């Protein structure tokens, strides 16, 4: 038995060392989290054209928008875009550390601060989408009848009745948005009914569905997952629920691995009529409504 354990352990150790060394040599200076992406980049640089790393929010990825848009760009310019979908907080952090070439995020105040601090070149509006409050089909609080487009009233009713509410709780753009709306409503959400999941939008929707609770979600992710959920839109169209996306090329002075040229091309393309029209059409065919409204100026 001891031999068996020893053998297994030394095998695992040997493997770990092998793998560890392999990664270490290629990109010692980078953090583990981004190593995979970067390595992928390095590998394909040998075989095909350029790559850029786009750090963005889980919402743009989960909604399927990027899978729809980026191939058009890639085809046109021969540049491959590696998407790292994380929360807005992490995306900005990646920009600060120079681990991404360009950011597409939605937390205007933090974004402007990011550019003001010299981490990004400039910030431009790209598009907006809106959030909706979703809840169980039964809607026992009758929010749909009483507050069809009044998010503040609906949240007040939820907290008064201590109905289950699942929050992202992950410092993402959506989480920040949710907190700002609670603040606007003058409520400090806390208690057994208010669950902070610390997870992505898809997971939180599944959780709310499972617990028959309410949650605030971007419309795109909800529509994409509608078929597997029993949740329904309860509140929509309130001005407080609009959500602006901005695009920021990362300051290339951070390190020499940043692909500034490619990032600039993607930046300009997102603001071009071609991309703006594509954004406006996305989702119409499948859901009967656009998921994002383009508003680049």
């Amino acid at each position, binding site marked *: *038995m*001891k031999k*068996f*354990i020893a053998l297994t352990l030394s095998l695992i150790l040997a493997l770990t060392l092998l793998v560890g060394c392999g990664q270490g040599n290629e990109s*010692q*200076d980078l*953090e583990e*989290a981004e190593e995979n992406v970067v390595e992928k980049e390095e590998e394909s640089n040998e075989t095909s054209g350029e790559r850029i790393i786009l750090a963005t929010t889980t919402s743009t990825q989960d909604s399927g928008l990027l899978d729809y848009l980026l191939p058009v760009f890639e085809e046109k310019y021969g540049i491959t875009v590696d998407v790292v979908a*994380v*929360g807005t*907080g*992490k995306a*900005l*952090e*990646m920009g600060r*550390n120079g681990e991404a070439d360009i950011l597409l995020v939605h937390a205007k105040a933090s974004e402007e601060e990011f550019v003001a601090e010299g981490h990004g070149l400039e910030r431009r509006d790209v598009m907006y989408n809106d959030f909706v409050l979703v809840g169980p089909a039964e809607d026992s609080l009758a929010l749909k009848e009483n507050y069809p487009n009044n998010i503040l009233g609906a949240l007040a009713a939820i907290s008064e009745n201590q109905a289950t509410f699942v929050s992202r*709780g*992950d*410092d*993402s753009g959506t989480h920040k948005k949710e907190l700002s709306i609670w603040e606007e409503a003058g409520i400090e959400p806390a208690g057994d009914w208010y*669950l*902070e*999941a*610390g*997870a992505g939008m898809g*997971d939180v929707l599944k*959780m709310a*569905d*499972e*617990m028959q609770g309410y949650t605030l979600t971007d419309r795109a992710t909800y529509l994409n997952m509608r078929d597997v959920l029993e949740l329904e839109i309860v509140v929509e169209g309130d001005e407080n629920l609009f959500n602006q996306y901005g695009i920021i090329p990362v300051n290339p002075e951070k390190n020499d691995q940043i692909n500034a040229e490619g990032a600039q091309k993607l930046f300009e393309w997102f603001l071009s009529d071609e991309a703006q029209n594509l954004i406006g059409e996305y989702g119409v065919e499948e859901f009967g409504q656009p998921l994002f409204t383009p508003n680049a100026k």
Partner: protein
Amino acid sequence: MVIFIDYIAQGFKEAINLLISFDKEIYEIIFLSLFVSTSATIIASLIFIPLGIHLGIKDFRGKRVLSRILYTLMSTPSVVVGLLVAILLSRRGPFGYLDLMYTPKAMIIAQTLLVSPLILGLTYSLSKNRGKEIQKIGITLGASKLDIIILVTRELKIDLIVNIVTAFSRAISEVGAVMIVGGNIKNKTRVITTAISMMNSMGEYPMAIALGLVLLIISFGINSLIYSYSGED
């Protein structure tokens, strides 16, 4: 590289601060991690150590096939176990009526399933290699089947404890299963590993490293305890 060292240094500082500040949330996270993984290890051990010993000393057809299946199952990825348990426990699943999804109980179930093959496999191979002789002595002394299992357990105590610790280490360090069935809900189902994963996606590296260090300290403590007990250096 500078950034990296910075994070580690900051992580150490934060880890110490965390531990001495007696922050309630952090200790709840640590306690839940220990509770879930310990429960899972105990449940799996109670069921599968006796079974493993029994299978190890018994001769039957297909023993080789069993070994291979067991060793394969031992390396089941935790996300796969999580996925399976989530499907079983979700509201539309067969056990949905139990309302267990996103609770610590679901996490215990998932981790029990995760470490069971490990406990069974390790015990089985231990008893297959060393149980036979003990069994022979037992038989000459006129022991019953149950007596033999108890006798083998007693004789191989130290090796079994090492196996249990191995299983516990696998349980407390996995993130895939508890993330899926627990959901990482603050103050409810958040454990060390899911918290680390979340901190990373929030870009809070020092805090993530701090929790990682806490995890290592726990493992170190448990291993020291076990090895000093078993008399090895």
